[in-house]
């Protein structure tokens, strides 16, 4: 199957996926670097290219609240935000998940203040790690387009009913123009039929949503939420298989590159996986047995995939674009370590925090981190984590 590829700014590709999803309600508040998504969707609504109600909310808290009300009333809903906006709406993220509403959101990742900085990293995404949303990191424009459309299908599946967040790196992805293969409206409709909620706020069948729970029920409700978020894994895989058979592009929770015989595997989420892939090929040419694991699925956490992909390596170098201040290093590294804690054979996990607040991570930086990790290992003084490339 060969299709035309069009050059699009990645924010636009995201908006195009939302249009193709035939959403009913969009509510968004502008913030750099998300702004272009809100602008393009506003344009589409203004031009009648999208039949949705576009609600110009006065804050991100209200953006998510409008999405919650609309989704509860049976509408397909979308929002997008970054950093401070995500922090402001974070209260509502937990509630959207607890209410099991299939809202889709694009998080254009950006660093959280202070100091104020509009540049990209994953500190915002990591701050809502436990909010109960299905969370994916995209590596390029095509993935942003694909994941956004898939998001509605996955979130609305009766076996799922969870909100869905696709993370795309601020600027490094959001503002980049890339060739993207789009799909036809007809194809989108076949892949993603009209949303038919089982329950909705409507006088024909009155329901109460958002009751409070006392300790005698709360834990059971949480346990179920946890189990069902984990179970969404199978649906995600199923939808990816279908996507592949329809459109020819295949996805998996971790996309591995030259890991089979690798002694060291670099693991990273988001756009920098592209740079890291080139770095890995260069290192291979120099004789280093290196591989790359590009983490796509963050929640539900793909524990088995992590073990399978990384289990045979001697060393795993996790590059986190977020820091747990005063904590134990990068958030992804922490979870990778705990994935192996009970395993008989476990790689050593080196944690580097790099590329925060938009600081570039070059191909040579990936090589430097790999070499550094080996040196530490040989000397037997691997630090728990290190902020890479930071002036003293």
């Amino acid at each position, binding site marked *: 199957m060969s299709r035309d590829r069009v050059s699009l700014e990645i924010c636009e590709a995201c908006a195009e996926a939302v249009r193709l999803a035939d959403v*009913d*309600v969009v*509510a968004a508040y502008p913030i750099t670097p998300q702004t272009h998504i809100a602008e393009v969707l506003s344009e589409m609504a203004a031009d009648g290219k999208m*039949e*949705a*109600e576009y*609600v*110009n*909310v*006065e*804050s991100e*808290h*209200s953006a998510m*609240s*409008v*999405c*919650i*009300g*609309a*989704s*509860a*009333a*049976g*509408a397909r*809903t979308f929002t997008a935000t970054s950093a401070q906006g995500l922090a402001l709406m974070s*209260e*509502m993220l937990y*509630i959207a998940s607890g*209410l099991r509403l299939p809202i889709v959101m694009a998080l254009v990742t950006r660093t959280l203040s202070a100091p104020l900085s509009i540049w990209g990293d994953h500190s915002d995404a990591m701050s809502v790690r436990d909010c109960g949303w299905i969370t994916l990191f995209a590596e390029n424009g095509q993935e942003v387009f694909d994941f956004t459309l898939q998001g509605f299908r996955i979130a609305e599946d009766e076996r799922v009913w969870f909100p869905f967040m696709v993370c795309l790196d601020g600027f490094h992805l959001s503002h980049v123009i890339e060739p993207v293969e789009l799909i036809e409206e007809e194809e989108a409709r076949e892949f993603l039929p*009209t949303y038919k909620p089982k329950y909705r*706020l*409507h*006088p024909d*069948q*009155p*329901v*109460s*949503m*958002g*009751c*409070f*729970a*006392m300790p005698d*029920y709360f834990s059971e*409700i949480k346990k179920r939420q946890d189990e069902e978020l984990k179970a969404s894994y199978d649906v995600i895989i199923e939808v990816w298989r279908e996507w592949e058979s329809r459109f020819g592009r295949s996805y998996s929770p971790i996309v591995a590159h030259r890991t089979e015989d690798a002694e060291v595997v670099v693991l990273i989420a988001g756009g920098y996986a592209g740079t890291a892939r080139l770095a890995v090929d260069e290192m291979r040419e120099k004789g280093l047995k290196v591989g790359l694991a590009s983490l796509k699925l963050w929640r539900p956490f793909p524990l088995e995939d992590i073990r399978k992909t990384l289990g045979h390596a001697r060393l795993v170098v996790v590059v986190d674009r977020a820091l747990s201040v005063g904590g134990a290093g990068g958030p992804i590294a922490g979870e990778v370590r705990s994935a192996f804690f009970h395993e008989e054979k476990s790689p050593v996990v080196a944690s580097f925090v790099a590329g925060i607040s938009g600081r570039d991570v070059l191909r040579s930086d990936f090589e430097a981190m790999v070499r550094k990790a080996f040196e530490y290992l040989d000397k037997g003084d691997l630090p728990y984590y290190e902020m890479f490339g930071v002036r003293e």
Partner: protein
Amino acid sequence: MDEERARLLRGFSPRRLPKEEYFSPGHRACQGCGPAIAIRHLLKALGPRTVVANATGCAEIISSPYPQTAWRVPWIHSAFENAAATAAGIEAAYKALMRKGRIKKEKINVVSLAGDGGTADIGMQALSGALERGHDCIFVCYDNEAYMNTGIQRSGLTPYGAATTTSPAGRVFKGQRTWKKDMPAIAAAHHIPYVATACISHLKDFYRKVLKAAEIEGPAYLHILAPCPTGWRCPPEMAVEIGRMAVECGIFPLYEVEHGVKRLTVKVRERKPVRDYIRAQGRFRHLTDEDIEFIQKRVDEEYERLLGEAEEA
């Protein structure tokens, strides 16, 4: 307005109110709870084609202990400060879904329901946004003049002099030191089609205003005084009576602002002294005669101002 509801207003009598209960008995409100009375009548007036977005607060807590519910109309609670935004989302969804033919085209009353805190303090931003955008919703503030759900803390709508747990009557300060925020005026400043005050003591006026709010296209704001015996420290059987006293002394006048035109809807011929109202409630127990004089003066001024602004009924 359907015929049954139109009939309600002709020869209004409590005995002829709709028999259906949409806010069911068995909820967990304190005895004599003003907000519970307000909600019961609000829903009787609006009928079953109504959906409610409720803020965190007494109304929500008394009515929805999982797995029970007191709501016989569709209802959602999500957080404290966002009832207006949630209602706006529901309204936007209905608009889109009706336009696309996914649900039947009809008039569904979308109600945002919040306390004084959920409206005038933490919920002000979301409310202002929703009013400005013109959603066709009824935004209801049931005003029990403090954060009751969390144990009687002061709000921006707690009246001057009232003792609450965060504006206690002490040696230096005598309870609340600020005047009640003029929330209906703030709502009216958004130039929405309809703003009204109401009280559970004046039911005919109450029903008329709810029905008008439902009928008018665009945002309507209803500010309902709903005495709370627990927080106001009065006997439960006095809740409605105290509401009446608030209206009759002029501290809570009943009026409406329709398309910018202000009108007193319950004209009090001879206003009663504010003292009677204040002395009936434990929250004002510490106030001296002088303090009450001070409040009376302010109430007189405000009432005169209102008379000056309002058109003759």
